[in-house]
């Protein structure tokens, strides 16, 4: 027990510091590409969810529900082992990137849907009445207004995405958690459990904390702005009800 935080254990971690940094780099790189994928999927399926076409809304719904109601680890294993068994393995990093991207894409899609849904109907109608097509309406009128609402929860999703790279451990990935695990169980490096996981946790924290702080700062400034405009919103809502 006393060896848990022994100088020797700390030294071991320090000697192999580049291993941890490499793990962080792998996690970061994977998170970055997964983020891009999830943004693309989130925007596409989020827009589909707000479409007037039932079939598009349906497809988006199925995607979101399927992904949100099954564990990420399962999706990861499914993609990795199913492909491996069919002889088309594409490597752990690629599998991780796609799984994470698809998983968080579903959450991003909900964020986008909620952001667009929070824009008053009158804004859509004003753009329609001026003769904007769908793309023009979204690009000039709707999305610039919903981006402020979308950004804070999106930043939270980025934090979750970075932390979820740890799920790659299940398929023996090269991410930070997997690297840490190999380190503490390794024949030559093993034993330094406490310092290794502390360092690994610290690395996660250093990356994630600024992001979640940014998210809550955004959220607070948005709330402040909302309370300032709540009066106009109320009169708007009354008007909508009064309108036949």
């Amino acid at each position, binding site marked *: 027990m006393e060896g848990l935080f022994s100088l020797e254990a700390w030294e071991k971690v320090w000697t192999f510091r580049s291993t941890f940094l490499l793990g962080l780099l792998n996690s970061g790189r994977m998170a970055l590409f997964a983020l891009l994928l999830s943004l693309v999927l989130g925007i596409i399926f989020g827009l589909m969810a707000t479409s007037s076409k039932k079939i598009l809304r349906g497809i988006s719904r199925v995607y979101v529900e399927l992904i949100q109601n099954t564990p990420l680890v399962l999706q990861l294993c499914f993609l990795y082992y199913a492909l491996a068994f069919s002889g088309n393995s594409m490597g752990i990093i690629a599998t991780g990137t796609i799984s994470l991207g698809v998983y968080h894409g579903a959450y991003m899609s909900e964020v986008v849907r909620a952001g667009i849904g929070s824009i*008053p109907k*009158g*804004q859509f*109608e*004003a753009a*329609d*009445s*001026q*003769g*904007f*097509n769908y793309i*023009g309406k979204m690009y*000039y*009128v709707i999305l*610039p*207004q919903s981006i402020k609402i979308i950004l804070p929860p999106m930043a939270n999703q980025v934090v979750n995405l970075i932390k979820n790279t740890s799920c790659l451990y299940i398929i023996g990935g090269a991410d930070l958690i997997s690297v840490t695990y190999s380190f503490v169980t390794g024949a030559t490096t093993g034993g330094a459990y406490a310092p290794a996981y502390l360092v690994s946790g610290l690395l996660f924290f250093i990356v994630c904390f600024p992001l979640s702080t940014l998210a809550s700062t955004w959220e607070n400034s948005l709330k402040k702005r909302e309370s300032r*405009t709540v009066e*106009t919103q109320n*009169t*708007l809502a009354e*008007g*909508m009800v*009064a*309108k*036949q």
Partner: protein
Amino acid sequence: MIRMENVNKFFGDLHVLKNLNLEVAEGEKLVIIGPSGSGKSTAIRCMNFLEVPTSGSVYINGEKLTSKNRTKVVRDSISMVFQQFNLYPHMTVLKNLTLAPMKLHKKSKKDAEELAYHYLDIVGLREKAHVYPSTLSGGQQQRIAIARALCAQTKIILFDEPTSALDPETIQEVLDVMIKLAKENITMVVVTHEMGFARQVADRIVFMEDGQIIEEGEPEHFFTSAENDRVKQFLSKIIR
């Protein structure tokens, strides 16, 4: 200019427009009145396909409106002013006015701004060009919305209860702008409860109830010798 033929509109089981036939001539000022729930807002919203009729046809300049051509027909021919103004809150007044001219009517920034200032002068709000809509009163916002509609330079402008969401003291400033417009050769269709305005400006008044037109005529006829009992009853209540 506008022709509605046998237009029916259902919201679920609710039959809102019942075989509506209505024609508006070029340059005509048509005022639609009637109790709430009579379908007058739905009728005007069918004219630019904000509501798509369940059956029947709408013609603009002889061209039949479809879901396919609506964007182009609306862009070229019809503007709308809403009860809730619906200005774009993330843009300054000037941007609100120049967005469609620049992006849809392919005007240069300089031309679009010249146009915007011209119409800001007409609604008397030139000094508000660089503020955001949320800093304006309801009456000012609606005047800006009218200027925005004018910037599209369409021959038809639809007004859907333009003064219903306004404080009593700002209603007149909006009506004054509309009265000024009525002198131009613009086709105006106005859903309103402002009977004084209707009497002063309308070439023709249509009274709707229960999704149908039950009386129509020139203002004088309408206010002095309406034949339908329901219309008389409505007018006696609304004109004090």
